[in-house]
């Protein structure tokens, strides 16, 4: 029944969007799908904000002299770019939007286990974001998103406490989302939805949630200690009284390294859905992909020290952190190879989400491999705190996660809104993002190895050519983001009605109507087959 395209729907069909009207029905909703949309809007705002900061950074770096803004302003720009992008955009991006929307539907539940806590998490997020914005409006923060002591606790004259409180608060929104997912996935699966049949997107978000729940509290307490130290003028990490600034870095990265997997696993989940769908073929190595998500989440907790190789941390600690960083690459490799293998003897079509998936696999691989450069002890000594690191993490975070997020948005847009986006424009902007991205960030690997330090407002003149390239690329990239923004909004009204399952995809979410009704399923589905049974579906469809 699912693969049969239904007649174009009239907007009259009752669904979660038209079930109720009025701002109250949105701001007090406990429907996971509406909350997902609330999140979608708020993180888009934050993304635009972070993007504006990024563009200002890039424009400043057109010339080596540092003549557009003064150095204090520049320092605030990259700090707020990092803080906004990491804590208020990328960490909540896929989990809080697509995850929130899809997980209950994918496992055949009517909602998350704690709908009111879900709503609360959005309010917490907004409160945190307001603190961050307040810090920006009052004058900004200039510590870098890493808040290293003693600069942040003693020397900076900016609104560190406000920003730290914002991040602290938003942490709880991350925690509550993760908690909700864990309980939901354990306790609310439909009959027959065994762990071996869970869509890989759910597996990936499950692993993500574990990190959110186990890691976030540590950064919360770390930032709380920082704020208290700064507020009370006492010493906790202060070297003048015997405190150790490196301890702060340990505690910060205990969260923030695993957090980079919060920022990639859900993206990997999206790719694991998209690739089989557009290859019309079950995923290769299902259980290995599922297990590798957990592997990344667990081993990811053991490698944080690779951010501390030149701080004077013990060399022996350097050894085990380096070794384990290599180990965590193995489950990532497993995923890359399995996606590739899925395409083998498939029937591949190039819809926009698939183009993003191609982009993801390529860019993530480059980002991941350069991560290995950084995990290699001797080489990191030269590369750390240079643009090589900047390039590495933009490859994984932008080339990886943001691309996956865009791919996922295109893939599920018909389900979320009941409308199709314009395919041609979709392909075009996917291309723009890919090209713009590479032009922006590839040169940074080179300037990095040449030795251009990061967080530099003015730089040595010989780096200029490559920096101009970067800036040019960033403009293309920006265009690649703005076009989808426009056509998504356009499609809400003018997009052609999507039908329940425009991609002919498997998965319970595609068996519901588009947009789904408030309780997702009129009757609780019973699952009798493994995930991605494309062959079966195709045969049913064809035969």
């Amino acid at each position, binding site marked *: 029944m699912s693969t049969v395209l239904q007649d174009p729907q009239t907007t009259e069909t009752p669904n979660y969007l038209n079930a109720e009207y009025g701002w109250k029905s949105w701001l007090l909703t406990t429907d996971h799908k509406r909350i997902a949309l609330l999140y979608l809007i708020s993180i888009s705002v934050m993304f635009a904000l972070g993007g504006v900061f990024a563009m200002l950074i890039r424009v400043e770096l057109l010339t080596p002299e540092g003549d557009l803004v003064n150095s204090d302003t520049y*320092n605030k720009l990259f700090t707020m770019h990092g803080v906004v992008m990491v804590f208020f955009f990328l960490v909540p991006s896929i989990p809080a939007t697509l995850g929130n929307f899809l997980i209950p539907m994918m496992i055949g539940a009517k909602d998350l286990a704690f709908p009111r806590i879900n709503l609360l998490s959005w309010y917490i997020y907004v409160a945190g974001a307001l603190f961050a914005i307040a810090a920006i409006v009052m004058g900004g923060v200039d510590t870098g998103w890493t808040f290293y002591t003693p*600069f942040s606790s003693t020397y900076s004259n900016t609104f560190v406490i406000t920003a730290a409180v914002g991040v602290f608060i938003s942490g709880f929104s991350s925690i509550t989302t993760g908690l909700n997912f864990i309980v939901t996935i354990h306790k609310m699966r439909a009959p027959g939805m065994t762990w071996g049949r869970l869509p890989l997107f759910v597996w990936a978000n499950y692993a993500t949630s574990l990190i959110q729940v186990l890691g976030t509290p540590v950064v919360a307490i770390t930032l709380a200690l920082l704020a208290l130290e700064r507020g009370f003028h006492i010493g906790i990490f202060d070297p003048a009284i015997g405190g150790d600034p490196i301890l702060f870095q340990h505690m910060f990265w205990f969260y923030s390294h695993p957090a980079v997997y919060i920022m990639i696993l859900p993206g990997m989940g999206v790719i694991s859905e998209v690739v089989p769908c557009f290859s019309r073929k079950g995923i290769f190595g299902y259980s290995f992909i599922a297990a590798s998500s957990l592997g990344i989440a667990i081993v990811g907790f053991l490698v944080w020290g690779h951010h501390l190789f030149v701080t004077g941390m013990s060399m022996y600690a350097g050894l085990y952190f380096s070794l384990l960083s290599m*180990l965590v690459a193995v489950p990532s490799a497993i995923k890359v190879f399995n996606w590739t293998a899925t395409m083998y003897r498939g029937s591949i079509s190039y819809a926009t989400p698939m183009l993003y998936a191609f982009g993801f*696999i390529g860019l993530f691989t480059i980002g991941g491999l350069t991560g290995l450069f950084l995990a290699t002890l001797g080489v990191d000594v*030269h590369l750390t705190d240079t643009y090589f690191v900047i390039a590495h993490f933009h490859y994984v975070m932008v080339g990886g996660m943001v691309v996956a997020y865009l791919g996922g948005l295109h893939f599920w847009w018909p389900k979320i809104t009941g409308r199709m986006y314009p395919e041609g424009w979709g392909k075009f902007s996917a291309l723009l993002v890919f090209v713009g991205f590479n032009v922006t960030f590839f040169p940074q690997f080179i300037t990095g190895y040449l030795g251009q*330090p990061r967080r530099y407002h003015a730089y040595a003149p010989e780096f200029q*050519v490559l920096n101009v390239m970067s800036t040019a690329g960033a403009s293309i990239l920006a265009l690649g983001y703005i076009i989808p923004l426009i056509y998504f909004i356009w499609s809400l009204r003018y997009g052609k009605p999507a039908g329940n399952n425009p991609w002919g995809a498997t998965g319970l979410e595609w068996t519901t109507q588009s947009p789904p009704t408030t309780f997702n399923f009129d009757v609780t589905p019973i699952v009798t087959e493994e995930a991605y049974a494309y*062959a079966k579906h195709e045969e049913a469809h064809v035969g």
Partner: protein
Amino acid sequence: MQLPLWPEAASAVADDIDHLYIYLTLVSVVMSVLIFGTIFVFAIKYRRRSEDEVPKPIHGSWQLEVTWSVIPFLVMLTFFWWGAKIYFLNATPPPESMDVYAVGKQWMWKIQYPEGQREINELHVPIGRPVKITLASEDVIHSFFIPALRIKHDVVPGHYDTMWFNATKPGRYHLFCAEYCGTEHSGMVGWVTVMEPADYENWLAGGGSTGTMAQQGERLFEQLGCSTCHLLDRQGRCPTLRGVYGSRVQLADGKTVLADDAYIRESILNPNAKVVAGYKPNVMPSFQGQISEEGILQLVIYIKSLGIINAPGAPTAALTQQDGGKQ
């Protein structure tokens, strides 16, 4: 318009790191080509040709999974091994190294030579001789970065860090502060001049030095009134400082410590932290806030010049600064 694509390499370690970097790049290129190539080929070869194509399901193969987990991991172990080797080499200055002292301060580098030269944001070194730099910070964390030598070390306030190199190629190279340290972080840059040994000797002789570091330290020793207590040759209220450096000092609480740079520094800033056996706490005042990190280094050199006891391990004494934040 210049477009450099590869940094200059002016030390043996730089070459090592370049080789490793090239190896990493090669492996990465091979892997990327493999993966992108495969995807590309699959995407073309298996493109959807008709609406009723039904690919055969392939569930997976554990043999393949094991292969593509184990082989990459073994390759990565070579990265790890080689990288670790360089890292350890990089961290262990040869005993015959010449000393240079660098203090990071928002936002400049103050360099001092035992011979007495002092410079700001400039470092002069000869080729062919290992140079050990002892790093200290007046305020926040900085990072001493010389790209042409491929070395970098954070300068963490509260203790000494060390790094070393052996330059091989004369020239002028960038010196950067690589750890974000506030407003003028990007202005905390300078130049490293690597010279032929003869030129270096000339330079040393030429500079407007006001005496060696030890002499400067001696002057400070007078000015700050250290000499009022620490009369050098008489046992009094205070321990004599002759022969202290590099020796094992018996403390009041029964422990012994190695009198290295970090210990002397702590004795000056927080004399009560480790009290010498037979003396009372609270006699020696703390000089915290009255003396710059540079001054402390001068005092350390001065005290060192009062005689090094060649206890076993003494030449490596400075290495114990690895003990981090312990004051």
